[in-house]
């Protein structure tokens, strides 16, 4: 078995007729990794492809723990140890906070250290609001819930797709803190972000995505020191002909 947790090689993905990922290859090891890039670069499509979610269609190879997962149904991918915090949180509006956590399979929720009580310990705020309909939660609380329910599947790798989107700066700071806590507790994260501050604070290893390809692999320290790269890949600046 290889030491990489997730190996993506030569993945092409299509969103409708658009060719969004162009033979993308990269790997994620035991170390938390950040994928950053501007809007429309294929970051979310990558997340959906990893989780086997529609409507993106893909081909190539994605190996997780040595086994091919591309083309497998989503629930199976999750059971193998990949969990997902989606963009926009995708909270179930007909369920209460508590029901979000109770609905998950007990088999998954008892295979590791994350239990419903552990999630409530991590986010006491959710425990206070357990009887509340999830749609009534604030954006930050919904994000906690989305993370909590993903943790409950006791994943080997947790994928987060733009968790900071639409949240107030102070909430983003709190979120960054929780992510750091999770990492220190041994959860491996794949953090897909547009927010440079959050990405660099949480992940040390960074992949920069431009037009469906990994344009650069770097570290947080390097990127923070490279103002030009920041502007080119993330800011208001043409990426130019590279």
């Amino acid at each position, binding site marked *: 078995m290889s030491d990489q947790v997730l190996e993506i090689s030569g993945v*092409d*993905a*299509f969103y409708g*007729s658009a*060719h969004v990922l162009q033979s993308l290859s990269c790997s994620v090891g035991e170390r938390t990794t950040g994928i950053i890039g501007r809007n429309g670069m294929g970051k979310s499509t990558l997340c*959906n*492809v990893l*989780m*086997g*979610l*529609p409507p*993106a*269609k*893909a*081909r190539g190879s994605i190996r997780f723990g040595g086994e091919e997962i*591309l*083309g497998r*149904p*989503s*629930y*199976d991918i999750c059971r193998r140890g990949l969990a997902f915090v989606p963009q926009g949180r995708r909270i179930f509006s007909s369920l209460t906070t508590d029901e979000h956590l109770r609905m998950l399979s007990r088999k998954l929720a008892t295979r590791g250290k994350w239990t419903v009580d552990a999630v409530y310990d991590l986010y006491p705020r959710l425990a206070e609001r357990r009887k509340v309909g999830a749609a009534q939660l604030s954006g930050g609380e919904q994000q906690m819930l989305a993370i909590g329910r993903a943790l409950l599947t006791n994943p080997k790798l947790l994928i987060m797709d733009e968790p900071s989107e639409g949240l107030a700066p102070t909430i983003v700071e709190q979120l960054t803190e929780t992510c750091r806590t999770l990492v220190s507790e041994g959860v491996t994260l794949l953090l897909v972000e547009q927010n440079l501050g959050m990405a660099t604070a949480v992940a040390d290893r960074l992949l920069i995505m431009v037009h469906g390809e990994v344009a650069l692999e770097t570290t947080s320290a390097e990127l923070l020191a490279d103002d030009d790269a920041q502007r080119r890949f993330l800011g208001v600046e043409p990426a130019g002909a590279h």
Partner: protein
Amino acid sequence: MNEGWMSRALSLGGRGALAVVLAVVALVPVLCSTFFTSQVGLTSLSLGIVAVSLTFLSGYGGMVSLAQTALFGVAGLITAKLTVDAGWNGWVAALVGVLAATAVGVLFGAISSGSVGIYFLVITLAFAEITYFFFAAVPTFGAHEGINQAKPPAPLGDPVLHPSAMYYFMLVVSVLVFLGLRYVSRTAFGLALQGVRDDPVRMAALGYNVRLHRTLGFALAAPVAGIAGVLSTWSNTRISAGSISLAVAILVLTAAVIGGLNKLAGAWVGAFVYTICDTYMRGWTDRFATYLGVVFLVIVLVSPGGIVGVLTSAGTWLRRRVGAGDVPGAGTSGRPGPLAEPATPVPVTGGQSA
């Protein structure tokens, strides 16, 4: 060179086959028995016309309607009522009947035009039921008994004993309806209707009133269904509420699907296939409806284009096999335009929601 000749021969052969079919259709009263002309010929022509009003709606407007038999019934019953009970001239009565069907069609269309897909289907099903129950209940229209002795105008003769005049009249009407609808589909209005079928949001952004177009499309199909109702009444010399029950509405849908919901000609093909089976298969099997259902199911599952779709693709396939270089668009689609990438590969595996 040799291949080009082969393909030309094939295309000639296709056209020849079509010509033979048309000639046979034209000569039915001469070649076939009176029973066949009256039972199979007249029935499949009127069924074909009501089916084509559905094919037009679904193929060009994206609206699969179960209410076409209701409009069929409105025209048929009003015509029968006016000729039999009020003693009107047959042609005038028919005109009034078709106009009434059109008016009802405008109403139905206006109400249902806001819905699409399965909702549209269910709403038109409700229309079909309302119309059925109305005619089944109202004594003026004979309730369940219906109206008998509704004979066609004198020039059309006796549809049972001497059906040729009626047959040719209905054949001419069929051809006119076919050509008319095909013409409409190429006019601004018809193209816009197809645009609404493909993408209503885009059409609204192009300055079109989407609901109005759907309503008018429905209104245009209504007189076609109405004409079929009048012709069916004349050729059977009777009509009743039972002629427009839900079972009949589903039968029309079945015929249209079997023939092909995308091509106008499919309506008559499906109607003919259905009528032939209905007339002769019942003799050697009691389970006619089961076989019909199986054919319906197989067509929906395998070839959404129906019989006509199968024939068309078989023709294209043959031609492509025989004369590959000769058929425009056969092997060359996907030629890149100036902005285009070198042919986008087709996605292989799908991330399923499973």
